[in-house]
């Protein structure tokens, strides 16, 4: 259905007090490899339309969602909207207002990219790293996608965003002559950098090599209270949990561990939630309610300063300057760890990072770690680490090296002491 027909249907229903419409276009090319042979290629060209209608009065807001499909015409959409009004009237919450028009975001439609060509070049960049005798890329999935999204609401907000993404899932394998060992790599970027792709695939292949010769903690004695360095998905999980604890919704539901002015850490680090950071794929200029995102400094000098989050819960908490649901976390550390000078353990790859937000339990089974014994790094595997995040953050340290992931920018490693290693 055309946008004007959708809006006409919404305006025709007098029971609808407000609405939000999100129209998303996706154009994607995908290549699936087993070893170095292409098993299947895919093209995806779709549009999805999602509507949220509101039925509000001075005290309550009821809302419900409707999906517009290719099966819909004006008649069927009008019927769907009437049913949605019934649902919205039945499921009411305390009143909150919608986003009002300020300045609309209008990202220029980027020039049409040759997605097939980019996907092919990405495949070449991946396979270029596959040069080892005992190690290889077992399978690779490549996704090159272009997205265009329009957000419209009944208060005059009309944003348009344009995004591009390259994603690679890759399974590196290494044989030690007796057994084969594999790891997992997920690469995501909103810029095309073939050299970087080759470099990162080579790195993960070499980590698979490390896993193939890794020792157990029965074979290598690790000192108690050793500094443990976590990175990538575990680091993202910890930062996510911390940010979520400080979100308006968690505070409103009284499920937060930290209040404003609480000391999170003796390390005087800063945590700022942002809309966009260059290189972070999760970057956005506005959130799901159309709120233009404003950076919010949550932790300064290790102390909680602010909360952040979406319109509804921000309003419930009487926040005057609602940040919007910010997708990217940035950490700035004051003073960095001197871990390199002492024995330490770098966790390269967890089986699956665990963090239970209520109890703060975190850790998991380690597929590959590197233990620095004071002279050299020794690959280790087959053990678990466990800690209590709200305790462990009190003495957290950060590395000088920095990194950018999909939704995080800051020190490459978070460094903890006193974790259980078993």
């Amino acid at each position, binding site marked *: 259905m055309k946008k004007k027909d959708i809006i006409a249907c919404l305006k025709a229903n007098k029971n609808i007090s407000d609405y939000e419409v999100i129209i998303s276009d*996706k154009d994607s090319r*995908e*290549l*699936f*490899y*087993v*070893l*170095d*042979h*292409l*098993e*299947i*290629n*895919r*093209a*995806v*060209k*779709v*549009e999805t339309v999602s509507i949220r209608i509101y039925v509000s009065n001075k005290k309550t807001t009821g809302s419900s969602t*409707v*999906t517009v*499909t*290719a*099966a819909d015409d004006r008649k069927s959409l009008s019927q769907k909207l009437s049913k949605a009004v019934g*649902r*919205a009237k*039945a*499921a009411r*919450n305390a009143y909150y207002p919608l986003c009002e028009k300020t300045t609309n975001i209008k990202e220029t439609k980027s020039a049409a990219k040759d997605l*097939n*060509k980019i996907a*092919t070049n990405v*495949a070449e960049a991946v*396979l270029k790293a596959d040069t080892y005798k005992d190690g290889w890329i*077992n*399978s690779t999935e490549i996704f090159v996608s272009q997205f265009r999204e329009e957000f419209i609401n009944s208060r005059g907000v009309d944003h348009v965003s344009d995004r591009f993404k390259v994603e690679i*899932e890759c*399974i590196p394998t290494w044989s030690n002559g007796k*057994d*084969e*060992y594999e790891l*997992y790599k997920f690469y995501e970027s909103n810029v095309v950098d073939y050299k970087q792709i080759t470099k990162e695939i080579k790195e993960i292949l070499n980590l698979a090599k490390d896993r193939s010769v890794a020792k157990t903690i029965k074979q290598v004695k690790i000192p108690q209270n050793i500094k443990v360095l976590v990175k990538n998905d575990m680091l993202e999980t910890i930062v996510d949990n911390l940010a979520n604890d400080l979100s308006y919704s968690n505070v*409103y*539901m009284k*499920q937060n*561990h930290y209040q404003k002015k609480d000391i999170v850490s003796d390390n005087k680090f800063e945590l700022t939630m942002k809309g966009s950071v260059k290189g972070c794929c999760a970057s956005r200029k506005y959130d799901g309610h159309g709120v233009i995102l404003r950076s919010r400094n949550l932790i300064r000098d290790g102390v909680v300063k602010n909360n952040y989050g979406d319109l509804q819960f921000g309003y419930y908490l009487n926040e005057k300057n609602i940040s919007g649901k910010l997708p990217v976390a940035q950490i700035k550390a004051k003073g960095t760890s001197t871990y390199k000078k002492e024995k330490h353990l770098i966790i390269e790859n967890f*089986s*699956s990072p*665990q963090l*239970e937000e*209520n*109890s703060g*339990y975190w*850790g998991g*089974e380690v*597929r590959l770690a590197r233990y620095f014994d004071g002279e050299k790094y020794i690959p280790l595997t087959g053990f*678990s680490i*466990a800690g209590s995040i709200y305790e462990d953050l009190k003495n957290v340290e950060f590395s000088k090296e920095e990194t950018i992931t999909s939704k995080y920018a800051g020190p490459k490693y978070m460094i903890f002491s006193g974790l*259980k290693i*078993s």
Partner: protein
Amino acid sequence: MLEKYLKSRIGDAKKLVQSLNKTYDYVSILGNFVNTKMITSSTHLNSMDEVDNECGFVIKVYKDGRYSEYSCNDIRGLKASEVIKAVKLDKIVSRDFKVKMLEENEHVEDFLREDTSKLSNKQIQDSLTLTRKQLEESDEKVINVVCRYVKRQTSKIFVSNKKTLSQKYDWINVMLLVVVRDKDVIKSNYKAEGEATSDKALSMFKKHAPEVKDMAIRLLDAKPVKPGKYTIITDPSISGLIAHEAFGHGVEMDMFVKNRAKAKDYVGKYVASPLVDMYDGAASCLSAASYFFDDDGVEAHNTQIIKKGILQTGISDSLSAMELGSVPTGNGRRQDYQRKVYTRMTNTWFGKGKDKLEDMIKSVKHGYYLCQTNNGMEDPKNWQIQCTAEYGLEIKNGKFTGKVISPVVISGYVIDLLNSISMVSDKVTVHGSGMCGKGHKEWVYVSDGGPYLKAEAKLG
């Protein structure tokens, strides 16, 4: 009844298949129409939404030893030339390798399984709200209660040269979450179940709400387990988690094609204690992943994976079966019409044994009774596992001590764990409320379960 719109596209699909057959050796079209209704009554937020709805098509073609797919919103008016242009690659980066072409038998059939209870939205919402209010008022430590009902109505058509299939099936999930707080300590407990009808699904709230809340409060005093090796008794949800994570992922045969699963070399060999039987299949029981045909148009199966401890076979989608020279088992599944087919588990469970739960508990000198799935992660290549239970109850000298540990991570080597199974209870429960990813994406609805199992495991 099959969703009207999809039914109206069967003719279009047949014409497009004919037209594309002039260029390609094999053509199939899958049409998906999924409608999901979610009703939530919670302390802080109520909602009644349509979520995760999906409507679209995927066209699969084969020529010169390679498959291509095109995902789109609609096929009415779609020209063969548009599909050909969309999937054409100007340059192919690949070693010269030819995948075999899918072979199909003639099959024309319509399948139907609908929710027979006719509860209105208001009746469902009232039922959820009643439970919520009772729990909120039952203890001042309760700070948040979430009662949720999700009904998923799935319609699919599959059209190829030899097949014209349609199916419609419903599944209902319910979930209860209770969050409690005592000063700075916050804990939660949940219960999730799935049923084929709404009334049966909603009965979970009445049956289990008090015990879910009571356990949430007990968890306020729970401590982490002292890492080590223990005797464990797993409840059916944890037995299912082990079946799914420890062994299920390892017998998905697209992993055999990639040589990524150790199980490939163990067919016909002992992989578990002789007390262990294990099954998977959309037709193995009625649960969350019970469909009539998979996304390759292959009828649902019931596959016995382990028989008396010996690995019998894996499970497969059509393409993997073609490459391995085996028979597809109806396990080809897509997250949605925009995604590729992979070999995926469906309903995965251990078979029953002969032991009574009471005898199993009595036999434990020191160990833990592990309950409630949290999550798990597989490692089919190296057979390491990681499964997390929400909590465990300490058993000493055959009796519960009242001590609770939480959360509990089970890790170790799959074969050691399965070989250590020494008792298997005489009743099986399959929980139809889960979702499963492949690697870290491709989410599909699954169920798992089994009897109570007694085993030895590393807890941390």
